[in-house]
C-alpha cells in the first residue's frame, strides 16, 4: 500500500472493476478477482446486481468471498440453485447474461485469453487449469470485463493458445466468427483500464490509476501499448469503497483463515 495515497494498486484495480458493473446487471462471475470486484459492486453502488456462478447459484449474496466456485456460502445465499447443464444451456446460452466477469493467465492485444498451456500444447512448460466455463462466457455474455494484473508475463505479444475469445485478429474478426456477445469492453488492471479501439479492436490504455505513469504501463505490456489521446486518470477509490472492500476481505480472512485477502 502506498502511504501517501492510502490504497494499494490491487485495491485500485478491484474498485475500478466494481464500478463498471451497473446496478441490476446480470453477471456471470469467475472466482478470484472477478468475484471480489462483483461482490464489492453488490455491497456498494449495485445492490440489485444478480451474481451467477457456474456452480449453478443464481442471485448469490455471499457474506464472505467464496474460496471455490461451489462454496456452501454461494448456494445458501442464492435465489435458486440449478444444475450445471441448466446454467450453461438455459441461462448462458439462453442469452440471459449481461456481463461475463473473467480473469486470465495471459491476454493479448485483442483481449483473447489463454488459461490452457504455456509452451506447446503437446509438451507444455506449464500446464494451466484449462477452459472451465470461460469460452462460452466470453462468447455469449452481452459484454465481458476482464480483471487481470498487468505484467509482461500476462500481457503477451502472442498467445500460444487461445482458450477464450476476445476479438481474435481484431477489427471485425469476432463479428464474422458468429460470436453473439459483443466481447470484452474493458480490461481492468492494477495499472489502469484498457478498452478496445472502436475500429481495430486493439486494447488501448484509456484510464490510468492515480500514481501510475504511462511508462510503467508500457513496461508492463508485452507489445507496443496504444495510449488514448484522451487518457484519463481513474477516480481514486473513495473511503466508502475502500472500507467496504477491506471489511469484505476481513470477514473472508476470518472465515477461511487466510488466502483470499491476496485478492484485495
Amino acid at each position, binding site marked *: 500500500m502506498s502511504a501517501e495515497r492510502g490504497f494499494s494498486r490491487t485495491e485500485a484495480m478491484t474498485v475500478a472493476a466494481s464500478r463498471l458493473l451497473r446496478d441490476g446487471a446480470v453477471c456471470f462471475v469467475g*472466482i*478470484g478477482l472477478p468475484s471480489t470486484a462483483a461482490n464489492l459492486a453488490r455491497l456498494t453502488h449495485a445492490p440489485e446486481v444478480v451474481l451467477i456462478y*457456474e*456452480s*449453478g*447459484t443464481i442471485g448469490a449474496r455471499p457474506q464472505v468471498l*467464496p*474460496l*471455490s*466456485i*461451489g*462454496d*456452501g456460502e*454461494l*448456494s*445458501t445465499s442464492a435465489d435458486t*440453485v*440449478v*444444475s*450445471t*447443464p441448466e446454467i*450453461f*444451456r438455459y441461462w*448462458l*446460452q439462453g442469452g440471459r447474461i449481461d456481463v461475463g466477469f473473467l480473469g486470465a493467465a495471459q491476454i493479448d492485444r485483442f483481449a*483473447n485469453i489463454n488459461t*490452457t498451456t504455456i509452451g506447446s*500444447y503437446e*509438451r*507444455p*512448460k*506449464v*500446464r*494451466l*487449469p*484449462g*477452459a*472451465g*466455463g*470461460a*469460452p*462460452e462466457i466470453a*462468447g*455469449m455474455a452481452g459484454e465481458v470485463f476482464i480483471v487481470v494484473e498487468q505484467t509482461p508475463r500476462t500481457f503477451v505479444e502472442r498467445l500460444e*493458445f*487461445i*482458450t*477464450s*475469445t476476445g476479438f*481474435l485478429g481484431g477489427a471485425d474478426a*469476432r463479428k464474422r*466468427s*458468429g*460470436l*453473439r456477445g459483443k466481447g470484452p469492453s474493458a480490461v481492468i488492471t492494477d495499472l489502469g483500464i484498457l478498452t478496445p479501439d472502436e475500429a481495430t479492436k486493439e486494447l488501448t490504455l484509456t484510464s490510468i490509476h492515480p500514481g501510475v505513469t504511462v511508462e510503467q504501463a508500457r513496461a508492463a505490456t508485452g507489445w507496443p501499448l496504444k495510449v488514448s489521446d484522451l487518457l484519463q486518470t481513474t477516480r481514486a477509490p473513495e473511503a466508502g469503497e475502500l472500507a467496504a472492500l477491506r471489511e469484505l476481505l476481513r470477514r473472508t480472512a476470518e472465515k*477461511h*483463515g487466510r*488466502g*483470499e485477502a491476496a485478492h484485495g
Partner: protein
Amino acid sequence: MTRVTSLREAVRDFVRDGDVVALEGFTHLIPHAAGHELIRQRKSELTLVRMTPDLVYDQLIGMGCARKLIFSWAGNPGVGSLHRFRDAVEHGWPRPLEIEEHSHAGMANAYVAGASNLPFAVLRGYIGSDLPKQNDRIRSVRCPFTGEELAAVPALRPDVTIVHAQKADRLGNVLLWGILGVQKEAVLAARRAIVTVEEIVDELKPWPNACVLPRWILSAVCHVPGGAHPSYAQGYSERDNRFYREWDEISRSRETFTAWMKRHVLDTEDFEQFKRAFAASTGREAA
C-alpha cells in the same frame, strides 16, 4: 436394482480395470471416499471423466490408476495447480496421461446427451477457441433448419458413475440437494452407478421436484458418512478449505504425495480408518 452394500464390495463388483469412470460433484458432494477405494483396490487403466478433476483425480492420477483424463478444468479451486495432474501431463509421472479437454459447457452438454441416449450434443460453443484444434472430438454440425454452424461433442457414456449424496432410504432410493452439478446426468448416462451417502434413513420424505435418484437406476448405495471430505455435503459438513491449501504442499513433490497416500489410503482399510489416520496426522476431524 440397487444393493445397499459396503463401498469395498461396490467398487470390487462394479468397477473394472480399463473402465470409463466418472466421479462427479461440482465442488460440493465430491466422492472422495470412493476415489480412495479405487486406489486401495489398485484399479488400473481407467479413463477418468470429470468436469473439475479436483484433488480426487490428482490422487488417482498420481497413484497411476488413470490412462486417460476427460475434463474441462483441472485446478485446485481457490488455491492453484493440481501438481500430480501437472506432473503427469508435463513429465509423464508416474505414467503418461492422455488428455481429452473440453469446456464446462461442452462436458455438461455431453453428459446430457449421454443421459438422453443421443449420440452427440449440440451447443453454441468453442467459437474462436483453439480447443477444437487439439481435441478432434469437438466438431461442428450444421443446423438443418437455419444453416447455422454449431459445435458438436460426442455423448459421454461412462461404464460407471460414482457420486456422493446426502441421504438414502433402506431400499436405496437417494436424495440430494444443494449444488447439484452434473450428478444426475452423469448417473443417468452411465451403465452402472454407485452412490455413497451421508446417512441412511427409514423414510426419505422428498419434497416435490427434489433431486431423487430412484433405486432402480442404481447399482449400489453405500453408507459412507463424511465420504465427500475435503469436499462437503450441504447440511452435514463444510468444505475443508484448509485441507485444499495443505494439499498444495502435500502434492507438490512425488515423495510427500506418495508418503501421504500410503499413510492415509493404502495403509487404511476403509474410510472410517482413513478418518482416524487423518485426525491423527492433522489433529482435526475429516468431516
